[in-house]
């Protein structure tokens, strides 16, 4: 045998791995390529063109849905991160107390319950509230998005808090800092990377949601994903590919920032 024997090698595993990477990226790559198709088909290549990007840009519904998506995601991410930060402060660096485990389970519950069931439950509940109050604005979507984003924001913040030194806060308290001052000048600056990671995670999760939005939205409140879902039932033009491509780029840049941040954090410690 020419090759040296390696304990780590398993025959065929590298091939399967490469195949997986290929299969993971092939559909996405095809999607992006056809966004630049000059023809009206998503299957036959007729030359390079940016016409579908232009057409998406000029499509009033797409632009409105995108703005709505971004607005909901921004507000929901901030709300969820604020709640998650407070909750993380309440559940770390503490001796066990009654209700702690229950609290922890409840915060993570949106991760466990099937999305379709949450969606249906919110549909039923919010349709009642709409009847009582007469209000049918974006508030329902924002509340729903904030709620399912909480656990996603909570996890990185809590992880960061866990790894922080609790004695710093105690030292500040010994120097007569009030709890608010401790949070403002000691905890928050150290916690910031975790908060930022949570914020971004919540933003992406909110931006991606289809199912809950589809059930909670009133008419005329399409977000970009629910608009796309509606379009998928009709004849599809490369305009869908163009919208998807822009959406992909946005997610990709967010994930890259997230990746670099967490990488730096690892180097620090």
């Amino acid at each position: 045998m020419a090759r040296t024997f390696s304990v780590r090698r398993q025959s065929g595993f590298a091939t399967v791995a490469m195949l997986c990477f290929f299969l993971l990226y092939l559909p996405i790559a095809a999607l992006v390529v056809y966004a630049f198709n000059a023809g009206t088909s998503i299957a036959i290549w007729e030359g390079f063109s940016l016409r579908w990007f232009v057409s998406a840009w000029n499509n009033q519904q797409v632009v409105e849905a995108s703005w709505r998506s971004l607005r909901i995601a921004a507000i929901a991410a901030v709300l969820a991160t604020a709640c998650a930060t407070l909750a993380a402060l309440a559940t770390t660096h503490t001796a066990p107390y009654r209700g702690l485990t229950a609290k922890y389970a409840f915060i993570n519950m949106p991760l466990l319950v099937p999305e379709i069931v949450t969606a249906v439950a919110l549909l039923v509940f919010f349709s009642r509230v709409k009847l009582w109050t007469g209000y049918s604005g974006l508030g329902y979507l924002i509340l729903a998005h904030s709620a399912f984003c909480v656990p996603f924001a909570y996890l990185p913040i809590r992880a960061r808090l866990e790894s922080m030194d609790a004695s710093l806060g105690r030292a500040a308290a010994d120097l007569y800092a009030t709890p608010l001052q401790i949070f403002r000048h000691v905890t928050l600056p150290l916690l910031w990377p975790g908060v930022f990671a949570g914020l971004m995670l919540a933003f992406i999760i909110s931006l991606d949601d289809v199912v809950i939005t589809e059930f909670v939205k009133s008419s005329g409140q399409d977000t970009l994903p629910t608009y796309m879902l509606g379009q998928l039932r009709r004849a599809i033009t490369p305009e869908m590919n163009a919208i998807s491509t822009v959406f992909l780029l946005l997610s990709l840049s967010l994930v890259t920032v997230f990746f670099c941040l967490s990488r730096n954090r690892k180097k620090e410690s």
Partner: protein
Amino acid sequence: MTDVAKAGETRRRNDIRDRWLLSAPALTLIAIAGTGPLLIVLIYSFLAPGSYGDVKWEFSPNGWFNVFLSRDIFDNTVSLADAHYTIFWRTLRLALATTVLCLLLGFPLAYFIASRPPGSRSIWLFLITIPFWTNMLIRTFAIAEVIRNEGIINSLLMRLGLLVAPVQMLFTDFATLVGMTYVHLPLMVLPLYASLEKLDFRLVEAGYDLYASRFGVLLRIIVPLTRPGIIAGSILVFVPALSSYVIPLVLGGGKNLMIGNLIELQFGQGRNWPLGAALSVTLVLVVMIAVIFYMRNAGEPGGRAHG
């Protein structure tokens, strides 16, 4: 009690009170707009359906009855709800097949990443997480484009002369399976990688010293040692696969329903909210059982710590 002890006790109480106050916003938010409304669904499952959707406020076991059985409207005979069993069976079959496929593909993939030099591992992992963070709907749409009749696969096979006419893949159970595997693969790879990364290769070496074959080492050393990761990954794939809604809708084409679509149907066209509610509760119960199984088996050896 001494004054010092009393002061300590008060401080502890105040601390716990503050901690409840701090977590109140998150808990309230989830109770109102997250999982709290599930209670309403539970109650609705025991009520009678209204004529135009919604419910009548009177007790009725029919929601639950209709999950499993159906009554003939003409002669009142009771029989098993065949249509529902077909859907339950498809859901279970597809979710299990997805899990197995993800495991078969994900294990070599995670192993490959874990056996790279430490510096380049995070890059490989990053390549796995990119598709994971891309919009699920876009990924589903991308799969639909690839397997449709005029898609890359069919046109390639036809150009190579292997096919005369395109094979119908879109709008079949096969399409749903492909889509679910594609979408959920990263969920399998990440916990598997976490387990494999901690694998002590001295044990593998010891296996080789004792004349084990490569396959023997894999089956009798590596797989048993990474069991927590295998279970974690399997549950992480199985649970969302079981409750899929968008993937069967887009790729299955509305005919090949899974339980998620059946639930939606009862709240939409079916106008049978109690039945939809009972189906939802059933789904949640199945998921909870899977999660409890996961917590029992995939936990860290030292037990999980809170706080």
